[in-house]
């Protein structure tokens, strides 16, 4: 099923000429941003110098750390008056990355979500429970407006209160669920303990964190759904930039809205389809916050085979990161953010270790820190106060609950050369 068959199946010259037109427009739009004006000046490229799509390679990359320099609104290409919504996502340090949307941006975004959901077979007959975080996280409102655009009956349940979520699925006859895969596993387990097999549910849309094919099998069996993978990030509006079709063998990128490249993360060299590398995305319809050749840090490849569904080129499901970003319960966490917070707390020593594991299908993050000797008063409650303070300040920045372990001085590993402070024990565990 198609939401917008013409755009979804646009290929060849017709697609290239649309992409070219939109890329030139995006470069001009980006010139409203001082960062890009300078970058374009220095690299000697402007919109007129782009004659074919591969000319995009003349443009420098944009990195996530660049966005930090513009906090909060430095990357907006339109007057703030035209920005009708703001979301934030993790930054690489204490300050989040701010993304803005014009009214047109919100329309574009919900159009893409509508395409994705229609592609999985959902229609205005369906009842859709959106069990992800509403608010600054893009997953909530993004899917919400896309589902409403289709005309689905939307249950904006958000996260938490799992028993109530299950009652709503059964009482409202919910047919489609959107959640992080780990929360969906948790929901399946609670449903089993409540003795229900969620008979109305048939479609599961899962994203915001990487999940394996084994997890897909488990989710499909336990929830009785067909599971579809969702990809996106706030910098490209949010989720829904790429999505699985009925074939469920790779994710279709929406090529009328994004130009996709795969590069060697070390050299920056552009790789041919079929080669794994870092995904670089240039959104070409974004008004409020255009980005040029944005390095996502996600590792994937462009698939060579044409899809029987008739849509454009797909990317493989994500297999990892080119940087050290962690995804904890669907939220992106950069070790540099953790370091930033810890360094700002005088009682905490210089060394730290982060341990990530999955317990009962949910991600747990434990951070070990040393307390500086001069801050040891001998009182237990002072230590507890420090422990709480670290936990609260991390929560405020990361939006993720962490367990803080105070360890004895000089017991943490000291690194010579590149520190390996993160131990991720999740592997294929779910």
């Amino acid at each position: 099923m198609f939401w917008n068959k013409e755009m979804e199946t646009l290929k060849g010259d017709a697609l290239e000429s649309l992409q070219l037109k939109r890329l030139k427009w995006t470069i001009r739009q980006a010139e409203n941003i001082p960062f890009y004006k300078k970058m374009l000046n220095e690299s000697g490229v402007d919109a007129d110098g782009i004659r074919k799509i591969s000319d995009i390679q003349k443009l420098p990359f944009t990195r996530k750390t660049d966005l930090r320099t513009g906090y909060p609104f430095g990357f907006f290409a339109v007057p703030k008056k035209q920005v009708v919504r703001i979301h934030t996502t993790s930054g690489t340090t204490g300050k989040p990355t701010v993304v803005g949307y014009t009214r047109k941006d919100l329309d574009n975004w919900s159009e893409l979500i509508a395409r994705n959901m229609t592609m999985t077979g959902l229609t205005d007959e369906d009842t859709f429970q959106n069990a992800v975080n509403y608010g600054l996280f893009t997953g909530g409102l993004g899917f919400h407006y896309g589902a409403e655009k289709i005309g689905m009956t939307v249950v904006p349940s958000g996260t938490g209160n799992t028993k109530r979520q299950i009652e709503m699925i059964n009482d409202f006859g919910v047919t489609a669920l959107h959640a992080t895969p780990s929360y969906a596993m948790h929901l399946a387990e609670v449903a089993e303990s409540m003795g229900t097999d969620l008979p109305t549910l048939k479609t599961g849309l899962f994203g915001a964190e990487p999940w394996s094919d084994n997890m897909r099998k488990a989710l499909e069996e336990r929830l009785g759904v067909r599971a579809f993978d969702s990809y996106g990030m706030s910098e490209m509006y949010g989720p829904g930039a790429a999505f699985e079709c009925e074939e469920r063998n790779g994710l279709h990128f929406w090529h009328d809205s994004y130009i996709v490249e795969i590069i060697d993360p070390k050299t920056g060299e552009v790789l041919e389809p079929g080669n794994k590398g870092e995904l670089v995305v240039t959104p070409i319809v974004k008004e409020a916050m255009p980005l040029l050749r944005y390095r996502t840090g996600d590792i994937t490849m462009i698939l060579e085979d044409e899809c029987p569904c008739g849509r454009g080129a797909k990317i493989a499901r994500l297999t990892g990161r080119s940087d050290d970003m962690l995804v904890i319960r669907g939220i992106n966490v950069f070790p540099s953010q953790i370091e930033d917070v810890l360094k700002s707390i005088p009682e905490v020593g210089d060394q730290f270790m982060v341990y990530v594991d999955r317990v009962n299908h949910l991600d747990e993050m434990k951070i070990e820190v040393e307390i500086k000797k001069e801050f040891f008063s001998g009182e237990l409650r002072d230590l507890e106060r420090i422990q709480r303070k670290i936990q609260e300040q991390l929560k405020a920045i990361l939006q993720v609950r962490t367990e803080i372990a105070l360890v004895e001085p000089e017991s943490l590993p000291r690194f010579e050369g590149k520190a390996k402070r993160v131990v991720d024990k999740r592997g294929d565990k779910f």
Partner: protein
Amino acid sequence: MTENSDSCKYVIRQISVFSENKPGRLSAIAKGLEEADVNIYAFSIAESKGFGVVRLIVDKSTAALKKLADIGFMVSYTDVIGIKMEDRPGGLYETASILGDAGINIEYAYAYSGRNGAVLIIRVDDVTSAVKKLLAAGKELIKAEECL
């Protein structure tokens, strides 16, 4: 003046040691103290999430503190009071009620039965007035130097 010197005389230096809650830590502390020829009169462990504070009353507190710091422990002194108690029913009540009536809060306490009778070690918010009230009520306190 007398009050101050009194409270000084009766303030015992407890050694507080930060310890992770894992096997072998108490043994490492005890081994260190043995090597420094320090005798432990009393100790207690207060535990929290994943860590604890080991509290010790010893015969040579300076030597003990130095040794524990040298072998890598995070240590500090804490001022406590040692009260001699009657080793009979009601002994604790007598002591606790003196402090309770005076509005002095006991933050923590532990007891040991030494060669010369039972001793209650207490950590209070106001050491000076606690010493004063206890002496006034006729309680016998452990002197800092003797500590037995």
